Each structure stands twice: as C-alpha cells, then as structure tokens.
C-alpha cells in the first residue's frame, strides 16, 4: 500500500502554521486572533503526529495530547478574558486594547 510521504504532512503543517501567523499579525479582531493561535497550535500538532507515525514512537502523540490540553485551558481562560475586555472597553479591536502602554 503506497504511503503518503511525510513531506506532504509537513508542508500542510507549515502552510497551516503560516496561515495562523498571518492571521495573528494582520487581523484586528481578538476572536480571529484567538482562532489563529488555535490554528498554529493544531499545525504543530499535525507535525507531531506525522513524526510519531514516521518513527513509530508514542512521544509525538503524548505531546499532541499535551498541546490539546493546553489549548483547551487557553480557550477557556482566553475567552473569559475576551468577554471581560469586551464588557469593559466595548470593543474587540486589538489595537485599542493598549492600556499597558506608558
């Protein structure tokens, strides 16, 4: 049975990661930025799984689970923060949330 080469997985992963970075840098809506972060995390997850399969080792799976746990925790905390920011500032534009400055 012909296998899918690992480079395909890696290219897909890199493409997803680049999309995540681009979204993080160029979008202003906090929710979108948040989703971009999730995208980057899952791109990395894809690489982990691909390598784990390639090397027939379980370490990559372990990392993937860790990343998913962290991502879930982050989603919970992050969404809570976003809600609070929106309540206080009535905006979701990331450039307007800069009260740390000065």
């Amino acid at each position: 049975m012909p296998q899918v080469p690992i480079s395909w997985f890696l290219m897909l992963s890199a493409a997803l990661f680049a999309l995540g970075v681009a979204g993080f840098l160029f979008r202003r809506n906090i929710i979108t930025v948040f989703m971009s972060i999730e995208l980057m995390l899952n791109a990395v997850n894809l690489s982990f799984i691909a390598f784990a399969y390639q090397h027939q080792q379980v370490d990559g799976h372990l990392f993937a689970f860790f990343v998913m746990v962290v991502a879930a925790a982050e989603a919970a905390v992050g969404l809570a923060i976003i809600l609070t920011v929106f309540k206080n500032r009535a905006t979701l534009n990331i450039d307007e949330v800069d009260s740390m400055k000065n």
Partner: protein
Amino acid sequence: MQLWLIPLLPLAGFAINGLWGRRFSKSLVNLVAIGCVLLSFAWVLKTLYGLGDLSSAHVEHYFTWIQSGALNVGCDLAVDRLTAVMLLVVTGVGSIIHIYAIGYMAHEGGYYRFFAYLNLFMFFMLTLVLAANFLVMFVGWEGVGLCSYLLIGFYFDKKFATDAGNKAFIVNRIGDFGFSLAMFLIFVNFHSLDFASVFQQAPGASVATLTTIGLLLMVGACGKSAQLPLYVWLPDAMAGPTPVSALIHAATMVTAGVYMTARCWVIYTHAPAAMHAIAIIGIATAFFAATIGLAQNDIKKVFAYSTVSQLGYMFVGVGSGAFSTGIYHLVTHAFFKALLFLGAGSVIHALAGEQDMSRMGGLRKKIPWTFATMMCAAVAISGVPPFAGFYSKDAILLAAHEYAPWIYWLGVVTAGLTAFYVFRAMFLTFFGDYRGHEHPHESSPVMLVPLGVLALLSLGGGYFFRVPAFLGEFFHAKEAVEDPTLVFISVAAGLIGIALAWVMYVTRPGMADAFAGNVSGLYKLVYNKYFVDEMYDAAVVRPLVGGSRAVLWKIVDSSGIDGAVNGIGAWAQGVGGVLRRIQSGNIRSYATWVVFGSVMLIVAMSLAGGLIR
C-alpha cells in the same frame, strides 16, 4: 625560655588599662602599667641569665604566620648579644621612665590612656628588637611608629600636637616605604626573610644587589632615626608629653634605625658604598642638627636637635664599620638623653608648663636635685671623661678617624658644638637670675628617684657597660686602635665648648646677644632652623596640596571620576529611552518581533548547517 612573655606582658598591660582603665583609680592604673613593664624587665634579666654567654643566637619558633608559595614567615623571636643589649636598654630605661611618668602625668587628663599607649609602645619596641625575621621586625617597626603618632598627639585638643603627630607619621611613611622595598628585594634574592638565612646567603650575592638593599634599608633607618633629610618630624614630636620625648624620641624608638642597620651588618660590610652613604649622612646630620641646637630657646627643642645630632653620631659609628660603637653610643645616649629630657620635664613641671628658656634662669637653688642630676647628663653628653658619653663618643670618633679623617674632624667640631649648646641650655636654665613669674617647686620623689638612677647610669654607664667588648665578637670586629692624641683633641673640643658657654652665658651675659647681633643674618638662619620646614613646605607640601586641589580634585575627581559615574548613568538612561519604544503595548508589534526572531533563528541555523551539537 618563653621569650614571648617579654613583649606580651606590656601588651597585657595595654589591654587591661586600655579596656578598663577609665574606671580604675590612678594607683591601679600605675600598678598595671608599671608592674607589667617591671615584670618584663625582670623576665629579660632572668632570660639573659639563663641563656649564658649568648655566643650563638637563641631562636624560638611559635607558629607559621604566613605560608604562601615560596614565602614562609614564622612568628619567630630570637635573642643574641645585640638583642640582649637592646632588651636591657628598652626595658630598663623604659621602666625608669614609666615610674617618672607617674609623677609627671599626675595632674594630666587621659591618665590611663597615656599609660596604655606607653605599654603598647613597649610591646612593639620589644617585638622589634626580638624579631628573628624582617617581617616580624617590620610589625614592631610600624607599631612603634603608630604609638609615636598616638603619643605625640596625646593632647589631641591642641592643633600643633595633632599636626606634629601627623607630620611624624607621614615622614616616617617615606622611610617605611624604603624598608618595604628592601624587604621585597631581600625576598626576591634570598627567598627568605629570616635573619639567619638571609645573612648566611648575603656574602654570596652581588655587590650591586647588596648596595641597593643597604641603601633602601638606610632610607628606612633615616626616617625612623630622624636623619637628613627626614629628620624634620623629630623636633616637632616634642609636642608630646615629656616622658614620651624621653622614652620614644630619645632613648628607644629613634634608635631603631641604628639597631636595624647594626642587625644587617653582614649586608653592609659587603656593600661599602651603602656604608659610606650612612657615614656621610650621619656626620652631616650630626653637624647640621648641632648648629640648629645652638640657637633654640625652647628647652625641649634644644634636646630634640641634640638627639638628632647624637643619632647622627651613631650612624657615623655604624657607617664606619664599627657597629659596636654605634650601639655603645645608643646605650649611653639612652641614659643621658633620657635624663636630659626627664630633667627638662622636671623643670617644666616646676614652672607650670613653661618651656621657654628666656623665662627661666637661676633655678639651681630652687630645684637643686633636678639641677644636680641634669648636670650629670650634661657632662656625660659633652664627652667629659670618665663619664658615659666620653667612652662611646670617642669610640665612634676613633673608628671614624680610621675610616675617613675628615669625618673625625667634623665630629670633633660637632662635639664642641654639642658641649656648647647643652651647657648653654643648662646655664640659661639654672644660672643667673630667675626671669619668669612662677613659683618654682622641686618635683616629687617619684620623679627624682628615676632622675637619680639615670644620673648614676650617665656617670658610670660608659665605664661599667663595655658594649664594644661584649659585641665585638658578634660583629667580627677588629680591635679598635687607641690613640691618646685623638682622644685628647675631642675631649678638648668638648671642654672648650663648655668654657665658651660659661663665658657667654654666665660671666658676661650680654655677650651672647651682642654676638648674635653681629652676625644677625647667620643667627636668623640658624634660629629659624635653616628654613628647612619652610623649604619642605614650599617644595613638597604646597605643590602636593595645590596639585591635589587643582588637578586631582578639580580635574581628575570632578571631571574624570564624577564624569565617568554620571556618564554611565546618563548613558543607561539614553539607552533605556531608546529601548522603551520596543515596549509599545501593542500585541501585534510584539508578535512581529517574535516572528522576526524565529525567522532569524531559522536563517541562522540554516546557514550554520543545522543545530549545533
């Protein structure tokens, strides 16, 4: 033989009086201070008695003090014949002066402090003479300098006393610098600082090395023993209490330079040039200081310059290669000069602090015991046979004649000057009519008994303590040649000096002033001590102070050091101001930096060809 007890006893006295003396009664302070010095003296006697004839050195090693690479310095004490002589002088004369001080200091403030310092001085002086290596000696050397400073500035509420203390300390520093350099050279060349080891190897070293070491040691000795050109601190040191002048600045500490030179006799005998320098400095100092002594009116100043002059004689002795004669004069000088100072102290005490001889006179009948004892010292210092100074001074002059006749002749002239100024002081103080307004009273027995003991030593010390015979073997010296003619000449010079003083100050009192008026230029020069202090002031002190203000303070400190400190602060602020802009508070700019950093890392890793393992 428990040599350590000798210096440790006075140290214990210092500790006890220094810590609790404030709460002690005066008699308890006396008991501690005098008791420990007397015990030390007794222990010296017992030790020397137990050691027999001391034909070889008795060394005691206590512990290793410094061990670092090739440097191995032990805390070692040693007794040989030279040390034995010094021990007896220091503890003997020291005890006498301690007892005298009970009476002299009776009405002074800081009584316990005075005796604590005096005991501390004894500790350091005994360490100095007992040391078996250069470093332990240096400890004593610096320690006596410290005590000298503390005691000169004893009346610390008087500006001139603290100034004099500073002067003594600073001028001594120059000498100590020479001593330290000499020690470095000795260690570099001989890989040891022990006297025994160094002097065993010294004959094998090159003459140039030994001469350098000898000259550097001489600088140290010149500072401590107040020789030209570093003598200036000693006359000012008279600001201290009189027992201090007698003990430290006449009998013991200032002779440390002579002792050290004699101790290093092996080095000097193999470095003739250094010895020649010592002899020349010695005779120059002897003559120079004697001329200044001619015109001083402060009784202690006269004896101070006399001390400088007599120390010059000792240097002539050791410089002529007759080390034992230098030590001989050291011993007799300790007797008669201590007596002169203590007598002067008794006079000052009687006149309630008056030191100016122009306001004395006629005290012979009012304080007869002081007069009688001081007269013994005066004839001893003038070289009148058969008193102490005669033996030692003539031994030096004979050695000097053998070494270089011109030194002998200058020495004879100096002997005449010495007799003149000492008797001038005696006549001005004790003869004629009283010119002051106090009511002189004789001192108490506690002061007079030490004077009496010292008077006996001044009269008989030269005859009974034949130091050259005792030390001749130690220095491998050849037998001195007796020459009656030379002896006669020097004695005659002394007698002429006395006679001249008698004529000028007793039989025709106006003559001295008339003579001074005739040569007023010269008189003013001598009266003002050749303006040496002013010259030093102009040549060293002012440039140093001015330079420190103008260059070190205004330029180096203000612009250089302050500038550097403030500059670093301003630079940090500027850099911070620039870096602050990175912390914009804008998340996307942070993210840009992160991405930028990651990209740069990847690029760098690609260029380097993968992760560095």
